[in-house]
């Protein structure tokens, strides 16, 4: 291990900008002659738009454009990563609270805000759907026009997609179960609440367009903008500065197409930075009701699992249905289950479009399935840890037929978490412990390219299309280059976030970047190493096969020569550089239910010790243990930051976070006052994060993805600890003091 390289924790690349305030996020970028954009929205969910009167707004000094649907190409263009169902502005009727109806561009923010208030939208409020039950009601109004869903047999319903997964014959084996446990758990609507609200800018750029966005997937955005404007990809330049937190909410295009049309209409740069309240209306996680029925033998062996997972997605699909299929698919968990039947539905509603959010559809069924395991443990009189260990898939076991076998020593992870929480040791009265596991299927496809340049002085530029939104991708890629090419990390620059400069990357999601882009960077470095070998062979008159290059040195006839001593004479008087290219590809597998097997699994075990205040229902977390199988922590400090961060984010939906809707579908707790997320005062008294590192992952040096694992099973672990402490069973999140207090009151007196 070198001081900079793999397994070390050098200072974050990009860290100085982050502590000095010089790091430029989208909203910090100043464009000359910019126009400020403000959205026009209605204070209700679903309404028929009768007319839009822009005359008063256009009178406001400084207003340059009021964009209405009528000013857009007709029919109004639609886009989206899965279904192309989201219009640039609401067409005919609004579908959710906060959907933009029009937008103003003006010389100042003040003028844009004033004019937006003066746009008169005559509208008629219509009945709308905000719950799973209402959406599935036979006479329910349809959220989406069936014409948008041609050839879709479900187009006459609010079910966007119904996914069926499983193996074995649940009905046939059910009779052989000694115990059947059934429970239904609900998971609330929660929002990402990145501290950086979403921001978008667009400007005419010669015969093309430039777009700045807080986007996680710049290349996907480039495709969307090119398609909607009819431009070649090469004429759409996406600038994607490091997002100030993403968590999935910034994966896909939202208002960039609108701002692009406004920039083209005015011939001026246009800038739209959402308020936090508007961001709440732009992204959320799907709420769910998940019913689990599972059969066990009296010794605890799982016989079958039958899961029905209903996800309430929003008015437009965004990537929500993919979270439903991926979360539903994995809901049998990391267990050996002979027969599994899963149905997972994405159900449309007149609510904020839900999208990817750390855990990608998995935390919801995991909440239900792990709670079911606890229920079974109690009914069977088996220790909850023991029940899990008994059914956990062992390394190499094909626990999910047709998919990647178990790729880690998961038992080791669970046993370590149990050890760290002191599982089985006596507790004072009023305290309890809970343990739960979480597993998430990693990326199923992937395509990442990287270019690495070794400059004449031995310094290095790495080009990688990943978005560094806090996970520390820049640092990890620099560490890989340092390890392979011998440059000190201070001599390495990592360039991201500009589609005109940086090669294609499919996306920054699914904890993929260390594995997929990391391998592309590694291969680009090894491409350079091959060129160095050829160079050394030429310089020293030896056969290339006798030369090795690794860890920054050239090995030649038993001698180790610094790379620079080969590079300088090799490049000669003109100088120049060596350029390496790397590609990491995981092609789709059309016959697989998800379109591809898991590149890796994220596996985590979370264990909690908690105390419940009987007077207030307040839960105090005395100890929170998270152990994640990461294969190899390339940067242990950053790995810990990701692991702790995901764990605390999991405490958000477990203990406090949820949207509150009123009867007309307005979110009543928009913004930071009424929607609480964990602060420094909401931490467990002790938070212990550990990694299991068996170097058995597909990423560089045996790494696996790891940024979501510790969020997956927080809720069931906390609920199990509450049950252990008090005896009350709660199946609805969040476990607010009021909810816990009511459950304590309702507790049957023995």
């Amino acid at each position, binding site marked *: 291990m070198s001081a900079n390289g793999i397994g070390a924790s050098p200072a974050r690349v990009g860290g100085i900008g982050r*502590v000095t305030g010089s790091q430029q996020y989208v909203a910090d970028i100043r464009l000359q002659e910019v126009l400020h954009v403000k959205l026009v929205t209605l204070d209700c969910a679903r309404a028929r738009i009768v007319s839009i009167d822009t005359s008063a707004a256009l009178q406001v000094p400084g207003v340059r454009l009021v964009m209405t649907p009528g000013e857009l190409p007709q029919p109004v263009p639609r886009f989206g990563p899965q279904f192309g169902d989201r219009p640039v502005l609401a067409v005919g009727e609004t579908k959710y609270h906060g959907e933009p109806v029009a937008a103003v561009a003006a010389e100042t923010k003040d003028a844009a805000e004033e004019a937006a208030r003066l746009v008169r939208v005559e509208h008629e409020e219509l009945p709308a759907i905000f719950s799973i039950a209402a959406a599935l009601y036979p006479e329910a109004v349809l959220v989406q026009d069936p014409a948008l869903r041609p050839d879709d047999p479900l187009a006459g319903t609010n079910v966007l997609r119904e996914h069926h997964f499983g193996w074995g014959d649940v009905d046939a084996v059910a009779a052989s179960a000694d115990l059947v446990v059934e429970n239904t758990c609900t998971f609330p609507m929660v929002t990402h609440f990145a501290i950086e609200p979403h921001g978008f800018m667009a400007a005419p750029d010669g015969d093309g367009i430039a777009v700045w966005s807080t986007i996680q997937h710049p290349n996907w955005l480039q495709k969307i903008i090119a398609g909607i404007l009819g431009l070649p990809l090469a004429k759409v330049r996406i600038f994607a500065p490091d997002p100030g937190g993403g968590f999935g909410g910034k994966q896909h295009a939202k208002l960039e197409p609108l701002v692009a049309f406004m920039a083209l209409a005015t011939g001026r740069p246009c800038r739209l930075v959402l308020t936090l309240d508007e961001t709440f209306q732009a992204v959320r996680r799907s709420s769910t009701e998940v019913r689990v029925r599972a059969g066990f033998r009296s010794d605890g062996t799982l016989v079958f699992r039958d899961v029905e997972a209903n996800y309430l997605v929003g008015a437009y699909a965004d990537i929500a249905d993919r979270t439903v299929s991926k979360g539903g698919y994995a809901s049998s968990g990391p267990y050996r289950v002979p027969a599994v039947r899963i149905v997972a539905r994405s159900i449309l509603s007149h609510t904020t479009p839900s999208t990817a959010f750390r855990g990608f559809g998995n935390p919801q069924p995991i909440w239900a399935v792990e709670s079911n395991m606890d229920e079974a443990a109690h009914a069977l009189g088996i220790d909850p840890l023991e029940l899990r260990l008994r059914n956990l898939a062992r390394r190499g076991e094909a626990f999910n037929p047709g998919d990647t076998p178990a790729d880690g020593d998961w038992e080791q992870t669970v046993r370590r978490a149990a050890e760290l929480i002191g599982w089985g040791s006596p507790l004072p009265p009023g305290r309890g412990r809970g343990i739960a596991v979480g597993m998430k299927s990693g990326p199923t496809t992937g395509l990442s390219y990287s270019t690495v340049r070794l400059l004449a002085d031995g310094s290095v530029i790495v080009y990688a299309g990943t978005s560094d939104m806090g996970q520390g991708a820049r640092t990890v890629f620099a560490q890989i280059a340092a390890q392979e090419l011998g440059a000190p990390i201070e001599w390495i620059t990592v360039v991201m976030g500009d589609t005109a400069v940086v090669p294609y990357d499919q996306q920054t999601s699914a904890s993929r970047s260390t594995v997929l882009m990391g391998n592309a960077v590694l291969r680009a470095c090894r491409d350079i190493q091959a060129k160095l070998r050829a160079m050394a062979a030429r310089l020293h008159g030896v056969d290339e096969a006798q030369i090795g290059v690794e860890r920054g040195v050239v090995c030649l006839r038993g001698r180790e020569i610094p790379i620079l001593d080969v590079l300088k004479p090799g490049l000669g008087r003109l100088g120049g550089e060596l350029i390496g290219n790397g590609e990491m590809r995981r092609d789709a597998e059309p016959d697989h239910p998800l379109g591809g097997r898991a590149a890796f699994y994220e596996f985590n075990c979370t264990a909690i010790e908690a105390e419940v205040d009987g007077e207030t229902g307040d839960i105090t977390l005395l100890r929170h243990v998270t152990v994640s199988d990461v294969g190899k922590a390339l940067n242990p400090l950053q790995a810990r930051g990701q692991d702790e961060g995901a764990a605390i984010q999991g405490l958000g939906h477990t203990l406090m976070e949820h949207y509150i809707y009123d009867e007309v579908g307005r979110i009543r707790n928009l913004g930071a006052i009424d929607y609480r997320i964990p602060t420094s*005062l909401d931490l467990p008294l002790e938070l212990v994060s550990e990694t299991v590192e068996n170097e058995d992952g597909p990423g560089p040096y045996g790494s696996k993805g790891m940024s979501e694992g510790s969020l997956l099973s927080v809720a069931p672990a906390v609920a199990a600890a509450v049950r252990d402490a008090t005896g009350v069973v709660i199946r609805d999140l969040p476990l607010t003091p009021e909810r816990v207090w009511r459950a304590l009151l309702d507790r049957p007196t023995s």
Partner: protein
Amino acid sequence: MIDCVSIEVTVNGRLRAFAVAPHHTLLEVLRDDLELTGTKECCLVGECGSCTVSLDGRIVDSCLVLAVEADGGEVTTVEGLAQDGHLSLLQQAFLDKGAAQCGFCIPGQLMAARALLELSPHPTIAEVQDGLAGNLCRCAGYQQISEAVLAAAEAADR
């Protein structure tokens, strides 16, 4: 049009005189008029702490202070922490402890932590968590942030 008001504010040690709209906040003026974009904008209701700056020696949410209220005052922003190109002990500790993940909340965290250490040079971890409770971090790097503040306090003694 709204009449502007002339104000003078010392920002990061430099006297600045300019005209502001009376309804514009200190945050807007710092970011839009002075182009000091290190101070961040998020909730605009004084709950997230990302716009924290120092005004006349006490920390404020600059989204809740009108720029005219800062007339004649002294403001320090995150851009004023490093001196002559050298990071402050706090900034260095944030880097060393991995406290800055996405980084968006960090300017506010640094300003709050600086004020905390001025009041209490040797805080306990509970005092650090209490002192930074008004600064949200959605990356939830709270432990590493607290460790950085404690490390900076220790470094100041050396």
